[in-house]
């Protein structure tokens, strides 16, 4: 088999740009798809050709499997890369693509389906020998059952919607009263958000770390892992800082977790890149959370410490080729830390911000990788996820990676709307982060990171002067003649 000559990227923003970079390196032509609001965006400009999608909303356009398959056929694209989000974990899309004679760059539809359901995936994890958190085996039928199960497992417990994700429909309960309320609210939220009210519960781990294992599998029976990423720094249950390797994971633990992840991937007949997510207690016991059957947002940190281009491996595997390396050839060296740059206000509950990006300057240099999909003049809108870029620092040691990332974030200039770059820099510069004392409650435990920075008098003076010197309000052409103030200004 040989690599495809042309690949359609069914995504937008930074991940579409990143996938196209690998396509270029492999000598493969790229096709972008876009909604009209993105007509002049970077991912369209970077592609060799582009097809417009229409939809009732911009997001609906990128979710329209039928139009995307038609675009593959029209442009002669032999394969489609879904990126993450949008259609990446929809088995029906993978099937529709295949039915049109186009290769889906991702896992088999059955694996997507099996892992997409929290209850089914947990059942498979048990069979594959991956430790799981003690919890209810099936969806809870009513409040009474929820209380009985919570009693059996022991408080605190976590209630989760089976179809959930991104923290939606999740609640912690530390007492029967809280459990009753949490069950009722989670069920209602699950029906509203996913049209599927099934809720189950499991033991809640206090001060947990989020650890995930990157796996790669080909269709020749080779399944390998590329070690772990730690993604414990989260806000609103979403990752904001991710790193590889985890400062907490020892080589022995890495072997153990990696073997468990590989075993699960084998169990579901997995191919392509996937991630087994685990929650880890402070004693180093990892418990299965879920498997993401796609490229992950934070894949760059793994690429930087292993030297493996994960997207290139996905393309090779989809073309029927073997993975370019074996488990014995995987070497993890150095440290890489990624920060997700969002248009949002970290000091106001991370409320998303919108507005123009009037000035855009990303840092570059040794030990810095920036994946982004924006151009100066772009508008951040409420139509899409507000992630602007991923800034990664890497170096021989974790201290080097932290230093480079903090410098890179401080040098990232995004003016015109509110972004979280300073918040991210504050996080990675925090002594507890440097000490590796990270867990998913990190931001709650350090509220100072989300309080507005107060400028001292000297800083304020510089900022006021900069504003005055640049404001057109002070430009003489717009002045209302005022003899007295003129005289005042020129007084020595």
């Amino acid at each position, binding site marked *: 088999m040989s690599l495809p000559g042309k690949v359609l990227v069914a995504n937008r923003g930074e991940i579409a740009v990143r996938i196209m970079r690998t396509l270029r390196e492999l000598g493969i032509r790229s096709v972008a798809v876009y909604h009209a609001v993105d007509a002049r965006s970077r991912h369209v400009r970077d592609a060799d050709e582009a097809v417009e999608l229409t939809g009732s*909303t911009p997001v609906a356009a990128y979710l329209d499997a039928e139009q995307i398959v038609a675009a593959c056929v029209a442009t002669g694209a032999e394969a489609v890369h879904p990126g993450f989000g949008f259609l990446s974990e929809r088995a029906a899309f993978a099937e529709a693509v295949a039915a049109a004679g186009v290769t889906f760059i991702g896992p088999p539809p059955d694996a997507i389906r099996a892992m997409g359901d929290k209850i089914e995936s947990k059942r498979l994890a048990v069979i594959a020998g991956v430790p799981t958190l003690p919890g209810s085996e099936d969806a809870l039928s009513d409040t009474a059952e929820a209380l009985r199960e919570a009693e059996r497992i022991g408080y605190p417990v976590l209630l989760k919607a089976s179809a959930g994700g991104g923290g*939606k429909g999740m609640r912690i309960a530390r007492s029967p009263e809280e459990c009753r309320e949490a069950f009722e609210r989670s069920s209602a939220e699950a029906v509203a*958000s996913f049209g599927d009210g099934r809720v189950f519960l499991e033991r809640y781990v206090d001060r947990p770390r989020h650890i995930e294992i990157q796996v790669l599998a080909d269709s020749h029976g080779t399944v390998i892992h590329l070690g772990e990423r730690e993604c414990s720094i989260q806000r609103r249950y979403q990752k904001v800082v991710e790193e590889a390797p985890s400062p907490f994971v020892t080589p022995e633990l890495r072997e153990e977790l990696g073997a468990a992840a590989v075993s699960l991937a084998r169990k579901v007949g997995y191919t392509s890149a996937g991630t087994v997510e685990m929650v880890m207690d402070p004693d180093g016991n990892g418990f299965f959370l879920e498997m993401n059957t796609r490229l992950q947002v934070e894949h760059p940190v793994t690429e930087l410490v292993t030297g493996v281009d994960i997207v290139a491996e996905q393309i090779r595997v989809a073309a029927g080729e073997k993975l370019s390396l074996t488990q014995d050839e995987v070497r993890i060296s150095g440290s890489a830390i990624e920060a997700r740059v969002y248009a949002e206000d970290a000091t106001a509950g991370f*409320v*998303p*911000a*919108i*507005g*123009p990006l*009037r*000035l855009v*300057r990303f840092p570059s240099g040794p030990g810095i990788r920036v994946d982004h999909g924006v151009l100066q003049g772009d508008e951040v*809108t*409420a*139509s899409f996820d507000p992630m602007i870029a991923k800034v990664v620092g890497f170096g021989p040691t974790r201290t080097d990676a932290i230093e480079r990332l903090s410098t890179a*974030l*401080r*040098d990232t*200039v*995004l*003016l*015109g709307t*509110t*972004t979280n*770059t*300073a918040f991210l*820099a504050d996080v990675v510069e925090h002594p507890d982060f440097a000490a590796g004392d990270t867990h998913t409650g990190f931001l709650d435990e350090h509220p100072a990171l989300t309080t507005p*920075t*107060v*400028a001292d008098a*000297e*800083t*304020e*003076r*510089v*900022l*006021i*002067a*900069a*504003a*005055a*010197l*640049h*404001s*057109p*309000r*002070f430009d003489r052409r717009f*002045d*209302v003649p*005022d003899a007295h*103030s003129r005289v*005042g*200004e*020129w007084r020595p």
Partner: protein
Amino acid sequence: MSLQISLTEPREVRLARTGDRATVWIDGVAFETRTRPDGGATELTIDGRREKVWVVVDRDTVFVHAFGRAWALDVVNPVEESLREGQGADSATAPMPGVLVSLSVAEGDEVTEGQTLAVIESMKMQTEIKAPRAGVVERVPSAVGESFGQGAPLVVLVSEEAE
């Protein structure tokens, strides 16, 4: 002419330029400054201290990137501001950025205080926008499906003086 520039609190600011040098008075205290272009940035020297700053002006907001973070400053002309006062309750504004999901009023409609005027969606949550007072709808700046920023007027009422 003096303007009010606020980072957190308003400061009275005056300015006198001579070439790349300028005197900036902040609350009556004079500071000597000098600016030099530095790539897309500006090297600003104030009282002997040198800082690299990036500046973008968006109407009356000045965004400055300095000291490793972005800051926003408001520039107002106190005279214009006093003319604009008292208009606050004339519109129902967006509590957060989002998308307009539905509108239940149109231009010319009479509304009562607390009446639901529109529904917005933000962070996958829907919020009802209610009338700040009774009145008549003057205009509805956004259409259903459009997005807007925090504080944007969603429904503007005919001002009480005009009624």
